[in-house]
């Protein structure tokens, strides 16, 4: 990765960490810079500790990196926990009245601000934040007008007095830094590009709107609630029906009712909410009514750690709803992919009349990424499969909803159409929709119907491409991951290469269909394979082995609730190549 700059802002929940984060994000993206942001927070509304990292640079930023260049602690707690993340050339901007610095690494500039002498913030406690933003931007080499216009926008809903106060505070901080602190040696560059900045949740919601979703149901659950919030606030403009339901069982069954009526229906939850949706998966599968369910994984089991990330739900998805049935499961690779994947998975789910599962996680759901607006394509291909929406001349054979076909797909008539009345059911049924237990259970029909449904598996396999291997051929090490580890694996490979260890990577997006044979082909001849994932037991490693018998040379697993940083993977690879271990569990050095 090219040069980048990482800012860390921390404080107690309620101290206003988010606003400086938003302001930096706007400034960076308007300078035509890429950014990647991650907020480490707790399940608490006020108090505790929250820490936002934003990393920016002219090229795509795949993760929030290994260190900070600028630390803005809003309280002593943050100074104590995070100062060590600053490396030579970095700086720490803090309110000298309230906070004592620790001992930074060599080459780190401490920038105390005598806040009470700079401004009167007795009535505006978060005023110290605005002072810090101004100071930071001066040190980054950003002109003040850029900050002024962003502040005006940030506080546009307040009156002019508030905007002026903030601009003055920012100015005070800006000028103080210009006079008293050394600027960063790498001034923030500018490019002509313009980027949209969004979270994975917003990307998935927008992807749903682009895919033609007309019905969205939800129950609030971290970290999926952001999808509901976007949907709810944009429902009227997007003409989407959005409903908050009494529980997740109601969420998924309401989506199924809407889908059966003929619209695209979607819902999002986390592992615990999905657990309640399991029988809904079965209904979707047995009745052959397509829906798309998003799981924003978080640390489990059970209530787990609601604000921390994990990749721990894979086996729940593979086994959800018991019995054998066709399904499609995909894990988006980054936040832009969160948008792109939704229309793709809907096309498959609808074409093959089965449930589709999006395996996202907190890291993507709540992280933010800069995305080229051209990638937010609101005119994707929409393929609704074999839908019967017209009764033509009214003359047709008696309609069979579950007609046995070679592909396994039976054309689907939309309720309301004359001449096509039928019953769909969660019970096993014959081609007519009649429950086979209504005419004494018929083993021949049961078998035929199971085989019909399962023929769809082949169609689904052809509809989703196998993964790709990226990087130099014949590499010293091949890293394998799935979903959100895509970004950090890419950077780890670059860093390894700089250290003389060639590395390539294979990151899986489609979990079902897995394309196990294609994966084996790609990995054939790999010198040293390591599977990287955010869970304890190696859920993907176990899945890959169960499908292909493939066993990697090693595993790197992190399950402390915090995402990988590139150095975690680099150090683990080195210790494994040195033969020290086959299982590395990186420790998170900072108590976030």
């Amino acid at each position, binding site marked *: 990765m090219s040069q980048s700059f990482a800012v860390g802002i921390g404080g107690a929940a309620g101290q206003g960490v988010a606003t400086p984060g938003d302001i930096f994000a706007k400034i960076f*993206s308007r300078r035509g810079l890429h950014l990647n942001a991650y907020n480490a927070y707790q399940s608490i509304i006020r108090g505790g500790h929250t820490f936002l990292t934003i990393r920016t640079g002219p090229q795509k930023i795949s993760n929030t990196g290994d260190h900070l260049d600028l630390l803005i602690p809003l309280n002593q707690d943050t100074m104590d926990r995070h100062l060590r993340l600053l490396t030579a050339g970095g700086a720490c901007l803090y309110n000298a009245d309230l906070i004592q610095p620790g001992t930074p690494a060599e080459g780190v500039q401490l920038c105390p601000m005598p806040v009470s002498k700079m401004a009167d913030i007795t009535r505006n406690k978060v005023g110290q934040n605005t002072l810090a933003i101004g100071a930071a931007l001066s040190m980054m080499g950003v002109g003040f007008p850029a900050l002024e216009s962003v502040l005006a926008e940030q506080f546009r809903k307040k009156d002019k007095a508030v905007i002026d106060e903030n601009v003055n505070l920012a100015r005070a901080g800006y000028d103080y830094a210009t006079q008293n602190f050394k600027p960063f040696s790498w001034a923030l560059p500018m490019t002509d590009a*313009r*980027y*949209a*900045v*969004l979270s994975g949740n917003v990307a998935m919601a927008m992807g749903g*709107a682009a895919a*033609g*979703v*007309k*019905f969205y149901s939800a129950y609030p659950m971290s970290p999926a609630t952001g999808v509901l919030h976007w949907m709810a606030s*944009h429902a*009227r*403009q*997007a*003409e989407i*029906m959005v*409903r908050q*339901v009494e*529980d997740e*069982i109601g969420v998924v*069954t*309401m989506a*199924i*009712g*809407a*889908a*059966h*009526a*003929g*619209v*695209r*229906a979607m819902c999002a939850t986390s592992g615990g909410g999905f657990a309640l949706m399991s*029988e809904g998966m079965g209904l979707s599968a047995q*009745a052959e009514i397509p829906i798309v369910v998003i799981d924003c994984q978080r640390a489990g089991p059970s209530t787990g750690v609601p604000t921390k990330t994990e990749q721990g739900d894979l086996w729940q998805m593979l086994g959800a709803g018991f019995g054998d049935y066709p399904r499609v499961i995909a894990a988006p690779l980054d936040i832009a992919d969160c948008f792109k994947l939704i229309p793709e998975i809907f096309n498959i789910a609808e074409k093959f009349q089965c449930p589709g599962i999006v395996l996202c996680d907190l890291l993507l759901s709540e992280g933010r990424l800069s995305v080229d*607006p051209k990638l*937010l394509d*609101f*005119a994707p291909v*929409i393929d609704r499969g074999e*839908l019967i*929406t*017209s*009764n033509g001349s*009214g003359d047709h054979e008696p309609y069979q909803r579950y007609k046995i076909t070679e592909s396994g797909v039976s054309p689907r008539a*939309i*309720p*309301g*159409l*004359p001449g096509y*009345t*039928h*019953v769909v*059911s*969660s019970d096993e049924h014959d081609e007519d*929709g*009649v*429950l086979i237990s*209504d*005419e004494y259970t018929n083993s021949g029909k049961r078998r035929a119907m199971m085989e019909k449904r399962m023929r769809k598996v082949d169609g689904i396999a052809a509809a989703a491409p196998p993964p790709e291997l990226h990087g130099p051929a014949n590499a010293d090490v091949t890293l394998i991951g799935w979903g959100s580890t895509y970004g950090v694996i890419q950077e780890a490979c670059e860093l390894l290469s700089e250290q003389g260890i060639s590395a390539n990577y294979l990151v899986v997006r489609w979990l079902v269909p897995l394309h196990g044979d294609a994966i084996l082909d790609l990995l054939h001849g790999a010198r040293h394979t390591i599977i990287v994932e955010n869970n304890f037991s190696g859920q993907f490693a176990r899945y890959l082995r169960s499908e292909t018998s493939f066993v990697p040379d090693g595993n790197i697993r992190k399950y402390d609730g915090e995402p990988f940083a590139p150095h975690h993977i680099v150090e683990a690879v080195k210790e494994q190549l040195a033969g020290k271990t086959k299982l590395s569990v990186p420790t998170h050095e900072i108590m976030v």
Partner: protein
Amino acid sequence: MATEVAGIAPKTISMADFKGRVDPDWCPGCGDFGVLAAVQKALVELQIPKHEVATISGIGCSSNFPGFIETYGMHTLHGRALPVATGMKLANHAMTVLVTGGDGDGLGIGCNHFVHTVRRNVDLTYIVMDNQIYGLTTGQTSPTSRLGMKTKSMPYGNIENPLNPISLALAAGATFVGRGFSGDQKHLTELIRRGIEHKGFSFIDVFSPCVTYNHDNTFQWFRPRVKKLEDNAEYDPSDWSAAMEKSLLWGEEIPIGRFFERTDLPTLHGSEPVLNAGPLVHQNNRIPADVAQKFIEELM
């Protein structure tokens, strides 16, 4: 997405239109036969074409109902008929939505959905075939089983007080509450017809005796006890408190009929501006370019 309809000559809708593909597999003498006939008769009286009707059920003997009537049926999950029906109604509010099931399905596992669907005033007609037992699983206590009733799951007698579906529906805010008896088909047909006509959530609890597993609350037990509210000229179904009082009566006199109705509250689909443009299923599913542009600009 539009559904195109080629010219279909109008004809009188009759019972034959609604005859199911298979005959019901209920035990001979089951109360549900009477409910099925009443529903079909009500639809014929209202002349609603079968393709405009959705019949949605959960799981249980009475939930086999959609298989025995020719409409757009959905035989879903135990206790989950109401949210499925809500989704169906919201996606296509031109459909007449009927929900059919039992007391275990609807008031046991499905009770949470019941309370919320009632308070949302979803425009559908919910018919609970109440036999105070779990029949299909061969005879366990249900939420409406009387205190002391002996079943396979409570062989020493039920020690729990039963739920009162009428009071519960009234308390949850149902805008139409009725109770029928499978043994009085004329009365039941009329009640169901009014329920379907009612714009809003119509709840009809029907005493539908299980001849195989409930030997206490049989047809013979109900017949002398059920008393039609309609026979009392002074009874005013717009009076909620009166309805609540009547709902608590049980024993030698058990009221049946239209307990309560109000027509002044909006339905759920009527409160949703997104549906002003017509049924969701027929609306455009593409975001216009200028709207998409605004969504993206918000992020920049």
